[in-house]
């Protein structure tokens, strides 16, 4: 319990004018309630209710009225194990999808506040064990020393070189495009990496990729609220890219690694990098506009699920649509799409809250995730919530009558696949690279 006050202060160090606005200007209208993937599970998981836990601490530490009047003005610091457990629970009922941000009449980003709450949870040592393990592994830079993980990576390289029929141009200095796949993609959506490589080879781009992944999924600290980890990982990646002389950095992962590298990195490392960061969708649209690629058009009933980080948080909205409309005449939108897209429910570590993943990771890495009874209960409850949260997205998919859902974030692929098996409809869920690889050609 002694760790609580320093942890509160550490989390509140993140308060800047924008966070101050988020903390102080909520009118409790609850307009943000209905967009959150976790509100259908309980109204106590509504964005404003979750963010209020941070407001309690803020008022107690940073406001005069809170210091003087305490609970009377809803100012308090958690004191009991139950209160801390509850804070961890609400902090891990958020995908950081930012839908609450755009729907709030006052532009209050509860997701960003919940990320601050996770800094608190992390500082008191309550980050879920599996995420902590990923985080430490990633920051150490030594994850490839793990036999299981090294094997996964090698398998990807083997598969890819077999697919392109030759050696991969690994670590090739001076290449125009540096493709950066992450270890998590190799583990969970290996086809997205293999097919991105196939596309790059097929269309004749001068490309390369690191022989070893630079991160598990950078930065895991963005998910856990551990800003030191985030700084360590993003700085290491930036140094590598700078030294490599990268011009265009290409990502197939359209989740938080994209926002981290594209928008967060300058603030973290303190400089605007000379390289540009593009997602595969943006890169291919550029080539299409330059007349360097073309598509064989089919008639698959395809829809696009906008990963929250790629669409709502980064504006990569028209690009995937341009590509899919080239590749099929039967493209259709989901009822909620673009910046208004419904989150699938799996982001920001929520997709890791399954017992199945704990087992799979244990087997793969040879690590034993020792969970206390309390944490086991936490994981079981989080898993239940996560699995329920997907249902809303699946209703959208059903309404679209699509037969193939294409998306670009490993967690979205995994989550929507789960959703399809739990709630239907029967759809194929593919990464953009996998859908396009047979349809794209050099012009």
């Amino acid at each position, binding site marked *: 319990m002694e760790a609580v006050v320093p942890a509160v202060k550490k989390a509140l160090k993140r308060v800047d004018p924008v966070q101050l606005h988020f903390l102080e200007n909520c009118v409790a209208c609850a307009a943000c309630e209905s967009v959150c993937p976790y509100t259908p599970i309980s109204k106590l998981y509504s964005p404003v209710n979750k963010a209020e836990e941070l407001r309690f601490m803020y008022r107690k530490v940073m406001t005069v009225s809170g210091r003087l009047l305490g609970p009377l003005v809803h100012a308090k610091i958690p004191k009991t194990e139950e209160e801390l457990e509850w804070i961890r629970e609400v902090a891990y009922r958020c995908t950081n999808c930012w839908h609450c941000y*755009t729907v709030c009449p006052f532009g209050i980003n509860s997701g960003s506040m919940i990320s601050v709450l996770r800094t608190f949870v992390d500082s008191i040592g309550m980050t879920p064990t599996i995420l902590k393990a990923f985080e430490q592994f990633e920051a150490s830079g030594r994850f490839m020393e793990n036999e299981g993980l090294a094997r996964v990576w090698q398998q990807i390289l083997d598969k890819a070189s077999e697919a392109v029929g030759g050696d991969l141009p690994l670590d090739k200095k001076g290449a125009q495009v540096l493709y950066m796949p992450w270890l998590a993609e190799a583990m969970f959506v290996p086809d997205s990496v293999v097919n991105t490589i196939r596309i790059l080879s097929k269309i004749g781009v001068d490309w390369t990729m690191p022989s070893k992944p630079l991160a598990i999924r950078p930065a895991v600290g963005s998910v856990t609220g551990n800003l030191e980890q985030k700084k360590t990982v993003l700085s290491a990646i930036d140094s590598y890219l700078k030294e490599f002389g990268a011009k265009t950095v290409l990502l197939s992962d359209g989740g938080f690694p994209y926002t981290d590298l594209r928008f967060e990195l300058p603030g973290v490392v303190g400089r605007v990098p000379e390289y540009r960061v593009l997602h595969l969708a943006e890169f291919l649209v550029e080539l299409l506009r330059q007349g360097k690629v073309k598509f064989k058009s089919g008639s698959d009933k395809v829809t696009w699920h906008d990963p929250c980080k790629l669409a709502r948080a980064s504006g990569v909205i028209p690009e995937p649509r341009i590509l899919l409309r080239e590749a099929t005449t039967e493209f259709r939108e989901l009822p909620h799409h673009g910046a208004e897209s419904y989150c699938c429910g799996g982001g920001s570590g929520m997709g890791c809250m399954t017992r199945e993943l704990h087992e799979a990771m244990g087997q793969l890495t040879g690590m034993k995730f020792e969970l206390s009874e309390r944490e086991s209960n936490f994981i079981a409850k989080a898993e239940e919530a996560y699995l329920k949260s997907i249902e809303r997205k699946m209703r959208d998919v059903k309404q679209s009558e699509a037969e193939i859902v294409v998306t670009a974030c490993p967690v979205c692929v995994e989550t929507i696949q789960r959703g399809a098996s739990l709630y239907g409809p029967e759809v194929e869920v593919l990464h953009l690279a996998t859908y396009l690889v047979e349809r794209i050609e050099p012009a």
Partner: protein
Amino acid sequence: MTVYEFAVYEMLPAAVLGFAAGMVYRIARYLSVYKRTVRPRRRARSIGHSLVHLVKTFAYPIYFSIKEERIMFASGLLGLHILGVIPLLFLFSHHVTWWAYYFPPYAALKRLAIPPSATSAALTVTAPVTPVSGMSGIFVNTIWGPLTVVLNGDVLAIIAIVATVFKVVEKIPKKVVGKVSYVRIGDFVALLLLLFILVTGFMATQHLPSGEIGVYKTVLGLHILGAEVLLILLPFTKFFHFVFGYWYGKLHEWYDLVWTRGV
């Protein structure tokens, strides 16, 4: 000294000063937590795109609540804001006169003034005395024409009062049964203060509880006093959104999502 005299002559300057001091304090707090940071390269989007999305940034919550949250839209946005407090505060004829007294150019809005009732600029349809203006049944002479049926003090005040009561009442089960933590005591205080101002304003216009001049002045004095208390508390309550939070929040969102990230 009567309540009316106190409210108009003593309290008014104090309220304005209190409001100004509160605003300075709030803005200073923003500045005190300022942190320098390196901004990312913005995604290139046309000025047209940025402007269209500026409108969309403000419009999306409204569009969303019409589509998905009808009760909230009707009570909060429509009842309390669009048809309630905003037109009453800025365009209700008595208020236009009041604003114009302290800030003469405001008189330009006189043609837009909303009369106290649909049938008389002086008295109201629901007044306890019979209108003597000879205009009963005829729309008063404002720019609003037949819209005066809705755009009049009587109707708007009743809408605002009903919406405010609804907002207070709907919070109780959320707090008591739903056990949500975001329903705050301060919200009740702010809404009840607003209700007090609306009810006393309505009563004063209606000459309630009696038309006797002393009673009228007391009720009007209480109405003005309530508004002055609100003005002093404004920087520290949810009403702050009206002068700052709404504009700062949405403009920041636009700058972050549209201007920088190109959404």
